[in-house]
Every structure is written in C-alpha cells, then in structure tokens.
C-alpha cells in the first residue's frame, strides 16, 4: 500500500543548534499525525488509518533520533506515541490477513470480481496501491495449490475470528486515542517541545 510521503520541514536553519531544528521537525511530524485524526472514528478507513500509523512511526523515530537534543519532558510522552503506532500496527496486520483471506476465499468461489487481480497480479507494479502485495497474492492463489474443502472451512473460521479480533483492536485504539484527546495530548507534546533545552 502506498504510504503518504513525509512532509518537508520548512524553516530549518542549518547553522542553528540541532535542538532548535529538532523541535521544528517534531512539530511537523506531530501535525502530520493529527492530519489523519478525522478518520479515527471510522474503522473502515483502512488506508487512512495505515497512513496514520506511518505518521505515528515518523513522529516516534524523530523523537528517538533527536532525544538528546529535545527537552527532557518529551521523553515520557514518547511512550504514548509508541503505543498508538503499535495499536495501529496490529490493526493493519489484521487488515492485511483479512484482505488476503477474502481474496483466497473469493477466488475459490470463482467469478467473484477477483479475476483481474489474479490475472494481472504478476504484472502489477509493486508500488501500486494495494493492501496486499500483488506478487504474494499471485503466489498464494496459485490454482495448482488451491485449498481442499477442509482447508477452506478452516479459512472461513479464521476469517470470522479475525474480524472479531480486528473489531477489538480498533476499539482499543480508539479508546486510547480518545483518552489522549481528553488530556489534550497534542498540546501536551507541543508544550514539552517548547520546554527548556537540555544543557
């Protein structure tokens, strides 16, 4: 799946301290994360939630890479960013397997709209916007290795179970996000970034 490109940070001063610039970068990455907030309430905005995960990851890495240069008060808030990234990561992992299973089971039904993917998967560009890598789809769905009836039965059970699991993963993420909003986490992190520099 295509990732949203990181925003270019403007206003950097190459000869200023790393700390000053790191704050600007972190603020940009924080804005980037909150740019996806409007999708939080819809569990099926899979692509946007995935992009939100990437934005959380970028913010996390920025805070880690420049940890020594940012105010000390930033460090405790990093854990929340990590948790958001992990929650969205689990959600994405489930989404990928669910999509793959739907393709598997749909393909076995025949004529269910997956023909195009099946027929063209090997030719599709890797960077195309697919939740599941087309090369992997083509490999897994090789008609020569189609699942038996028992195996299909098992895959159906797995798909149902994954749907339930995905639901609870989403609920956990959303609850966490709402908790963060209640305490105004965004402002909290902005305030921490504006705090006194480390000596």
């Amino acid at each position, binding site marked *: 799946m295509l990732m949203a490109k990181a925003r270019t940070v403007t206003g950097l001063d190459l000869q200023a301290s790393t700390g000053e610039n790191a704050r600007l970068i972190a603020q940009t990455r924080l804005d980037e994360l909150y740019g996806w907030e409007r999708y939080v309430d819809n569990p099926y905005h899979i692509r946007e939630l995935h992009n939100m995960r990437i934005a959380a990851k970028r913010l996390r890495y*920025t805070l880690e*890479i420049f*940890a020594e240069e940012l105010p000390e008060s930033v460090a405790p808030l990093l854990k929340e960013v990590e948790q958001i990234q992990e929650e969205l990561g689990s959600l994405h992992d489930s989404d990928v397997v669910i999509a793959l299973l739907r393709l598997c089971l749909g393909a076995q039904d025949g004529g269910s709209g997956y023909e195009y993917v099946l027929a063209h998967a090997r030719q599709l560009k890797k960077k195309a916007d697919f939740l599941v890598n087309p090369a*992997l789809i083509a*490999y897994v769905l090789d008609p020569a290795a189609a699942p038996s009836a028992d195996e299909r039965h*098992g895959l159906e059970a*797995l798909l149902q*179970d994954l749907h339930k699991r995905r639901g609870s993963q989403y609920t956990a993420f959303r609850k966490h996000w709402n908790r963060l909003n209640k305490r105004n986490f965004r402002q909290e992190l902005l305030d921490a970034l504006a705090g006194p520099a480390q000596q």
Partner: protein
Amino acid sequence: MQMQDGSVRAAIDVGSNTIHIVVARCAPADLAILADEQELVRIGESVTATGEISAQKRDDAIATLTNYKELAACYTNTPLIVVATEAIRRARNSQQFLAAVKRETGLDILIIDGEVEALLTFYGATYELYREPHAPALVGVLDLGGGSMELVLANRKRITWHTSVPVGSGWLHDRYLQSDPSTQEDQEVARTFLSTYFTGMPLPELPPALIATGGSANSLLLLARRAIGLDEQETRLTYEQVVRCEALLSDLDAETISERYDQPLKRARILPAGALIIHALMLRLQLGEIRVSTHGIREGALLAYARYGDRWLQRVKKNAGGADDDAPAEESQVSEEQDGSFAQTGYRLLLERTHKMLEWREEVLKHEDIEAVHKMRVASRRLRAVLDAYEAACDAKQFRRVYRRVKEIADILGEARDTDVMVEGLQQRLEREEEKARPGIQWLIDRLSAYREAHQVKLEAFLRKLDDETLAQQMASLRAKGNAHGKG
C-alpha cells in the same frame, strides 16, 4: 630570560576521557612546565550511554579535581583555570555537575565551545614547534579527545581554518568497538565509517605537517616506544608505525594491552579506536608521518592567560570569531560548521544510521532468525526518518537518488517482514485454534512460507549486490548543501 619572571599558574582540562592538569611558569609565547598529570575518568562513557554524567563519574571527577587543587597549591596560590569540553557540553546534567564541583572543591569550571577548544589546542600544541628555526609554514593540529576531535590549519602562525568534529576515541569505541577485543567485522565497520566521514569532510588544503595531541595520540606514541622500538626521544610516528601499532592492538584484549604495554586499563580499552582514527586521518591528509605533542588545551589556556590576562577567555572567543591578533580578520575563517550544528549532526546521523542498517545484512543473508530482517527494516526506516528530517538541508538531486535507494532497500525488506509477521501470527493461532480451523491455517502458513522462501532468494541477490561503499559515499555527498551557511 623572560620565563624566569613569568607567573606560575595551573590549568585543568576536564575532557571526555581524561582530567588533565598542567602547572607552568607562563610567558605569552612560552611555558616552563613544572607539573603535568592526568587521570583517565572517562566521563564521556556515561554521557554516551545515558546522556548524563553518572554519580560515579561525578564523584571520580571531584576526587581528581580535589587532588589537583592540592597539587597546584604546592606551586602557586593563583586561581586555577578549569575548562571542560565535549562530554560536559553534551551532558544533560552538566549544570548540576558544575554546581557539585563548585560545592565540593570551590572550583569554577568553564564550559568552552568547540571553536575555543580548537584555538586553545592550537596555541598549546604549536608553541614548541614555533621555537624551532625551520618550522613549516603550513601546519595542522589534531586534538583527538574522547568525545570529539578538533582540527586546526594554520599558515605562518595564523589560523586559517578550524573545525570541531563530534568523533572521538571514546565515542568510536562506545559506538563501534565494544567487544573486547573488537571483532574484525566491527573494526571494518568503524574503518568504513571513518573513511566515509573524513572523505566528506571539506578541507581547504592538505597540511604537510600535522601535530597530534590528546591522550590517544600520546598513548599511541608510548605504545610505539614500548612495542616496536621507537626511540624514547622520538615524537614523530610514521604511517607505517601507526599501521603496525594498530595491527598489534586489533587482536589484543584491553587487559593484555594494559599489562603488556604498561597502559592504564581504561586507556587500553579505547586505544584501538584512537589508532583507527589517526590512521584514517593520515590517509585523508595524505601524511607520511605525524608529530605527537603532549601539550594541548591546558597549555593553550595558560599561554592565553599570559597573553591576555583575566579577560583571556573573551579574547580567545573573539579570536575564534576571526579577529585573532595574530591573524587579521580578513585572513581568518571561522569554522566551516558550528560544533553541534544541525548540519553537522545530520551528517553524522546519516552515516551512523547507514552503517547501523548495513550491519544487519550478514544476519539477513544467513536467514536463520526472522528478527534480522525486522531489525534491518527498522534501521532502514530510521535512516529514512533522518533523511526526511534533513531533506531541506540536502542537494535536491542527490537527495532523490539516495532516498530512492534507501526506499528500495526498505521495500524489499518490508515484503519479507510482512510475510514473516503473517506466518508468525498464524503459527501462534494454530496452537490455540479449535480443530476445525487448523487445516485452513496450516494451508495458509504453507503458502506464505513458500512465498517467503522464494522472496528470500530475491532479497539475498539484492543484498549481495548492495555496495556499502557506494551507499555511504552517496550519503556523504548529501553534505554539499549542508555545508552552506544560512537557512535550509
């Protein structure tokens, strides 16, 4: 002689590796050394590990400073000059450290910046050379400390260029050479890092003579005397002698180096890193030999005091800004990059992150543990985060090329990792699922595993073709715009 009329003064340098005192009778252009001692406290070790000066390091430093205060009192009752450099500059708790030292010893420590450090080192390291009748016109001075190195170029005693680089022997050891003895692979990674870093370091000219100072350079000279029969009076080290010393050190653990060559154990641990740095810099400067001086920042501070009096630090700061009395402002250049500036940190981070990513390549090729792919992919993501942060500071064309390359690496690793995650998740499910679901899960695991094996072949071919040197050089090339002063 003027020296006999000079006042006696003591200067202490609190460095990343050592705390060093010199007591001397001082004149503006000469010193008569009366006492010279150093203690290897390695404050930089705890700063590199945790970002702070640990309580143990603080107490060790206070004990050493207390002893030095007593030593200085045997010669003079003038106030001590105490300066601190990279480790204290970097430590988050440096202010608490200064307060504790003040409380326990009454000493005021001055934290000096990289430029002042470079100038003081130059004054200290060259005053003996300039007493010689045929001193070379163009001279370079290297002060190799634990946390950073200062490099100064001077023409006819006028400083023409200087820079502070955040790479020191303690730092290199802590980042790259932690096993004891270090492995061949670690040494190779450290060499590649240094070579790439120094290749990308812009130099206005190559000095025909280099004076190296600092603990590692002096310990290397001692090692050469003890291990390869260098004359006791000789202060020059040839390239071949440096290479021989480096080879000796590379196979030995710190305890053996310490015992065999009579080096303090803490110094023995970081000496191989110091030798690697000196070797790499000699290659960069195309030098057949270096001179080693025991003098540096402390002697420089004493000379500056003798020259400028109580306002010595302000005058040196002014000189660092290009207004040296010995060098007209129009002939003096300020450092290419400010110590700790965003441009300089970025350059270092890019190289470090590139090496960290490439470190995992062999493990990925072994294909024994799925964690190796995960680690290498995370490292590639962190490298991309650094690239994203520095995009505005880089040449746009070079940046796009490097970014594309790193993305390719991340993508191919990503395909492997995503499949590993699916297989791992399904395997865990297989153990706890009801009987009816198992055949389906096993079928999917088999299909994914077969795909993963096929992808491994592709991944290995890609990684074997990946040229570390080229990638590191491409990273180094991003520096072009990063050198420019002004807004990014």
